[in-house]
């Protein structure tokens, strides 16, 4: 392998940082919209866009630079108090932030973007700033700093008197990774600049504290340099130094001109390119209070997770062989083995925690979904979130985006009433969608609630009867009725809307959640709102499984899918047609499948007496019975992907390695049912 292009690595880092900056940007804008933001928030928002623009400039991403620049101008107007932080402006900034995110991602992946959206946001930004004087000098102050190109001297030279400034850095300036040298260099690039270093306060070497700030500077700026230029140069030093700007009348006393290379003796790298020595310079100011973190390639973490999985398997194999060695249970070997088991579990937990990520970025993305859905339906909607710090496995997190997006759109589209209806009901005009996450007994719970009208059960009932999902005389409980929402092809809204319609219903959401090993439930209060509750396992790497044997093979059934088990006597079995059989389970008839036969391990058996039937939950709340020869064990297994060495196998979700080193296949109860020979969808087996 040839050495990777160093620019590529820097580019990658830039885009990673962009994600953080975008997150900070949205967070700041959210804080401003809820009124909890202050001047610092405005500054941090501005800095985020500014940093993205800077990095984009260094990589020649012109389109991104152009957009970020216009966005920045808008934010600058907000920062300098030229416009008010009212709801309209913030809405626009949120839209611009969404679009900036799109542009960043499009630049990263080399994808095209929707120029129309860009133009409309830019037009609105112009409209917002319309009455304000154009701020052109921003172009000039920034480009040279990031691109490290010596700047032309064509700054308008009509300013009355050159500015003079006194710059006294605080200790924190150095601590945050800033360097006065870069700031002064940036100033000097605006034109001929006189910099004077004052070292009077410098103590002798014996008493010098190398981490203190002793030096201060006076600078006589080039003619034409404006206060805004200076502010821009000191952008990252704001609050970290004393800065006084005065108009220069008299010449500098005892001037010792320093050609933009002041004393602090360290590495010599002019310009603040993205690879400049203080790598965190741009983000440090925003993130000084955070605990230190490292960025690690996900592949490396996955490798570690795999290795620990190995360790767990190895530990199981070792225990198994030691136990077969018939050692006394209180022997030192057994005690050591117990400790080994404990340690392995601890390591496994710690490694899983590395993969765990806060759910916050996902919730933030939902903010955008709410905004878009709200503007298309014409409803006023506010998204509230809580428990954003809740951590969840990265893989689970990635796969949650689609179902959650769908549920949020549903909540806005179907859950919330129109403004008129809300007024009649005495509710505030603005509807609320609440996203909450928390941990409960080893699982992650995510609630999506709205304060809308609740589920219309009469309509659900009518629709279910119309669709043949429910018989006329059936009298289901309210919660059974609610569960009908998850039936395939069920939708109570007659017109397919642009938002949640698209021909997919909650059954798709449920399916997606189930593939993640999760469950979904509804609670609804007429007139008060609806809550969808998703419960997910903390990780996808480990599964609680039931180890079963069928047709001479050992397999694992996810424990979550098994509702109960029953020994088949033979008398509780009936043949419906030559192809299909049913099993009587406490007075109810369930379709019966023989696992060994479904998987082709043996031909059809007529006598299943003595087998164990697992009552398994399949799609849409339906159940079926799956016979196996024996239940061997119940244990946690490490999930191994079947890899892409060959295509997917119907009925098989993944594989695992058992204590004896053998590979066992993990069954997919839903697919097993769908691919079973001669068994199509259950007839009317819908109500649980």
């Amino acid at each position, binding site marked *: 392998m040839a050495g990777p292009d160093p620019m590529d690595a820097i580019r990658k880092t830039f885009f990673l940082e962009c994600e953080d900056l975008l997150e900070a940007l949205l967070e700041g804008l959210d804080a401003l919209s809820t009124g909890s933001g202050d001047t610092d928030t405005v500054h941090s928002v501005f800095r985020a866009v500014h940093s993205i623009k800077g990095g984009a400039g260094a990589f020649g991403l012109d389109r991104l630079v152009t957009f970020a620049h216009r966005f920045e101008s808008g934010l600058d107007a907000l920062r300098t108090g030229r416009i008010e932080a009212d709801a309209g402006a913030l809405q626009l900034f949120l839209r611009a932030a969404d679009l900036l995110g799109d542009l960043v991602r499009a630049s990263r992946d080399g994808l095209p973007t929707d120029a129309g959206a860009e133009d409309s946001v830019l037009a609105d930004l112009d409209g917002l700033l319309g009455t304000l004087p154009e701020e052109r000098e921003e172009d000039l102050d920034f480009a040279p700093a990031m691109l490290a190109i010596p700047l032309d001297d064509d700054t308008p030279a009509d300013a009355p008197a050159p500015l003079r400034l006194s710059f006294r850095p605080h200790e924190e300036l150095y601590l945050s990774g800033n360097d006065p040298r870069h700031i002064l260099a940036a100033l000097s690039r605006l034109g001929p600049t006189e910099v004077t270093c004052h070292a009077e306060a410098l103590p002798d070497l014996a008493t010098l504290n190398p981490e203190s700030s002793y030096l201060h500077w006076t600078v006589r700026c080039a003619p034409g340099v404006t206060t805004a230029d200076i502010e821009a140069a000191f952008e990252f030093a704001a609050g970290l130094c004393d800065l006084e700007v005065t108009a220069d009348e008299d010449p500098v006393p005892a001037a010792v001109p320093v050609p933009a290379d002041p004393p602090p003796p360290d590495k010599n790298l002019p310009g603040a390119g993205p690879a400049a020595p203080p790598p965190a310079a741009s983000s440090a100011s925003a993130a000084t209070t955070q605990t230190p973190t490292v960025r690690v390639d996900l592949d490396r973490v996955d490798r570690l997770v*795999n*290795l620990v*999985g*190995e360790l767990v*398997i190895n530990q199981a194999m070792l225990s198994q062989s030691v136990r077969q060695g018939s050692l006394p249970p209180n022997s030192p070997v057994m005690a050591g083995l117990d400790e080994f088991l404990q340690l392995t579990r601890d390591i496994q937990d710690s490694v899983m925690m590395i993969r765990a990520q806060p759910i916050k970025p996902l919730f933030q993305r939902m903010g955008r979904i709410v905004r878009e859905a709200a503007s298309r339906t014409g409803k006023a909607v506010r998204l509230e979130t809580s428990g954003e710090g809740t951590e969840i496995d990265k893989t689970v997190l990635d796969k949650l985006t689609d179902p959650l997006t769908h549920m949020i759109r549903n909540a806005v589209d179907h859950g919330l009433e129109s403004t008129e209806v809300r007024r009649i009901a005495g509710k505030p005009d603005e509807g609320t969608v609440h996203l909450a996450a928390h941990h409960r007994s080893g699982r992650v719970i995510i609630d999506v609630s709205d304060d809308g009208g609740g589920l219309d059960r009469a309509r659900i009932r009518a629709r279910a009867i119309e669709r043949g999902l429910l018989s006329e005389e059936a009298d289901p409980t309210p919660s059974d009725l609610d569960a009908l929402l998850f039936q395939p092809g069920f939708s109570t809204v007659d017109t397919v809307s642009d938002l949640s319609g698209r021909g997919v219903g909650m059954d798709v959401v449920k399916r997606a959640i189930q593939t993640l090993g999760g469950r979904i439930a509804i609670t609804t209060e007429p007139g008060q709102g609806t809550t969808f509750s998703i419960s997910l396992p903390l990780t996808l790497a480990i599964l609680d499984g039931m180890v079963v044997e069928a047709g001479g*093979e*050992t397999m694992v059934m996810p424990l979550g899918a098994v509702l109960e088990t029953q020994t088949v006597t033979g008398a509780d079995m009936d043949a419906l047609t030559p192809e299909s059989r049913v099993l009587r389970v406490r007075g109810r008839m369930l379709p019966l499948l023989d696992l060994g036969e*479904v*998987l*082709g*391990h043996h031909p059809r058996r007529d006598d299943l007496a003595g087998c164990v039937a697992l009552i398994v939950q399949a799609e849409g709340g339906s159940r079926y019975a799956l016979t196996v020869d024996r239940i061997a064990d119940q244990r946690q297994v490490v999930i*191994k*992907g*079947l*890899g*892409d*060495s*060959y*295509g*997917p*196998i*119907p*009925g*098989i979700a993944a*594989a695992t*390695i058992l204590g004896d*080193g*053998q*590979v*066992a*296949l993990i069954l997919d109860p839903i697919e097993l049912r769908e691919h079973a020979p001669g068994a199509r969808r259950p007839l009317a087996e819908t109500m649980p």
Partner: protein
Amino acid sequence: MTQAVPDPGAAPVPEAPPLPEDRQIELLAFHLGGQEYSVDIMSVREIRGWSKPTPLPHAPGYLRGVINLRGTVLPIMDLSERLGLGRREASGRDVIIVIEAEGRSIGLLVSAVSDILTVPSDALDAPPDLTGEDGARFLSSIALHGDCLTRVLDLSAVLPPRTSALI
């Protein structure tokens, strides 16, 4: 650049210069159905003893199942059956050649590995056009070494189709 520095003390030995690295190829040879086959040794990751694979439901017959290769789930292919030479009954003396091709790993089940052949790359001939012979499409070339003919497998053709084959 590979010229040896002449040793003034030694008499010049007329020695056939060894073939440069890129001009010869190493093949791992084994026997199937009485014929010698081989694979480019660069694609061989390891050779391991036989262990019973876990069968995959609804898989084509040549796919014997999967085994645990130090924590990775590795598919095992009965090479004899894949080449149309008939299913071989597994015995404890069989070996599994773990190969990697096109970013995929797979284990080839063969009776035994016979030899490592070093052949000049210009000794590799394109297989004759054997229309109708099922096995021919799996060969990338043939080579003579001594009196023996070895059939070099085209691993990308031997690998099972990536998708849909099992559905």
